[in-house]
């Protein structure tokens, strides 16, 4: 379902959502129906329509750039060790119009968004919340609902540490996709029992790279890390 469509050819009618673009006099009219919510945009111009997964912090509206993934089962990691685990993250689907440059038409999701606070009300951050199982290899997921996050965990401390959640700044999240998988990659450097530095990294998977919302908004973002200092 993800990919490029000629503007007049886009007509996706599925059980859980409908997306169509129709010609109406001088405009193309983009319609999307999902969870009884309708999005309608008139497009003055032409181009290709691109659908791909985007950073999952836009629904119901963008109030944060942080994503918190809580693990259903905590992991105990031995000192000075490195492991790779796989968790899932929620998918938000972005619709873009492409004609030399990208512009965002719409973002929607088939998942139920939930937000949480990491830290204190005065010094913490609001995060998009997601709970995930922990996998030792890339799990199979519904690509319209769940992506896979490859998580490199480095325990650089001298202690055994318990790891139960990761908070990531989605600026710099690189998402790759094909028909069977949506994947991204992040690293976590645990420096002590309660502190870790996290950041998304470019996994450079041999798959199609998703257009990012922040790129489409012309925001110039350097790769950003986040220091988890209110517990792991």
């Amino acid at each position, binding site marked *: 379902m993800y990919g490029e469509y000629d503007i007049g050819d886009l007509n996706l009618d599925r059980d859980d959502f409908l997306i169509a673009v129709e010609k109406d006099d001088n405009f193309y009219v983009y319609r999307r129906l999902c969870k009884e919510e309708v999005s309608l945009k008139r497009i003055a111009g032409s181009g290709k329509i691109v659908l791909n997964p985007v950073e999952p912090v836009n*629904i*119901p509206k963008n*109030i*944060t750039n942080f994503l918190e993934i809580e693990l259903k089962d905590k992991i105990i990691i031995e000192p000075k060790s490195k492991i790779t685990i796989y968790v899932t993250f929620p998918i938000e689907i972005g619709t873009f119009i492409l004609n030399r440059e990208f512009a965002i038409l719409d973002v929607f999701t088939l998942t*139920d*968004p*939930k*937000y*949480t*606070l*990491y830290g204190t*009300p*005065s010094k*913490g*951050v*609001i995060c998009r*919340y997601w709970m995930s199982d922990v996998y030792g290899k890339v799990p199979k997921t519904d690509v319209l609902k769940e992506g896979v996050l490859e998580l490199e965990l480095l325990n650089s401390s001298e202690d055994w540490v318990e790891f139960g959640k990761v908070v990531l700044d989605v600026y710099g999240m690189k998402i790759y996709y094909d028909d069977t998988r949506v994947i991204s990659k992040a690293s976590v450097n645990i420096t002590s029992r309660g502190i870790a530095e996290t950041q998304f990294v470019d996994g450079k998977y041999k798959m199609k790279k998703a257009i990012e919302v922040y790129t489409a908004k*012309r*925001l*110039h973002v350097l790769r950003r890390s986040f220091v988890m200092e209110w517990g792991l």
Partner: protein
Amino acid sequence: MIDILGYKVYENVTVRDILTVVVVMIVTVLIAKIVTINVKRVLADRIRRDQLDFITKVIYFSIIIIAFLGVTPILGLNLTGLLVAGGVAGIVIGFASQSVVSNFISGLFLLWERPIKIGDAINVDGVFGIVEDIHIMSTIIRTFDGLYVRIPNERMFTSNITNLVANIARRVEYRIGISYSDDAGKAIKVINDVLSDEPFVLKEPSPDIFVDSLGESSVDVVIRFWTPTSEWYSIKTNMLWKIKVELEKNGITIPFPQRVVWFANKLGLEK
């Protein structure tokens, strides 16, 4: 014409010097405005509006102060000497302009301490509203009903300021009475489900729902939950009705105040 320009106003300062200073200051103000407009244009999408306003003000006044310091020698002013010589005059002017200076200094402290930012919702001495601008002498507040209120910075600085949006999360609290005949455990579960379905009712800190008291007419349930501050008002105004509707759907009633009255003798009506 040349004679007029060369006319000495005082000491060696001529009309030409004064005109030069005036022209330089006018050009400086224009340059400062052009620079700040361009800075605003470039940074508008990249930083917050309050930060942008602060930066542009600093740039604007820095340019003007630098230019002013540059032209003072043309006017024959020696700032060091002026400070010493102006001591007595300064005291007099100081007393005369006490509140002006006080407001000015308070404004500087407010900009430095930054208890509020442009765009914040605040309460100062009972004035509730949005901070529209922080000037060097006063702070402008737009009340929630759209009134323009100018508060001198001295008052701002010495008053208790409640910043409603300084923290990123705020708590909402409701108290709902349910009938004595209803199952409070079921009511709590229904309320919890309603809160779970709302994206902006935060998962953590987790909602707190409990029977708080056994009232005269109802079992009183207290509901506390947290929301992002930016969404606090809309969530607070929406959730109560959602909870009420959902409780009623599940057969839980919210009783009216009621009192059972026993009569010692049978009512005449019944006879």
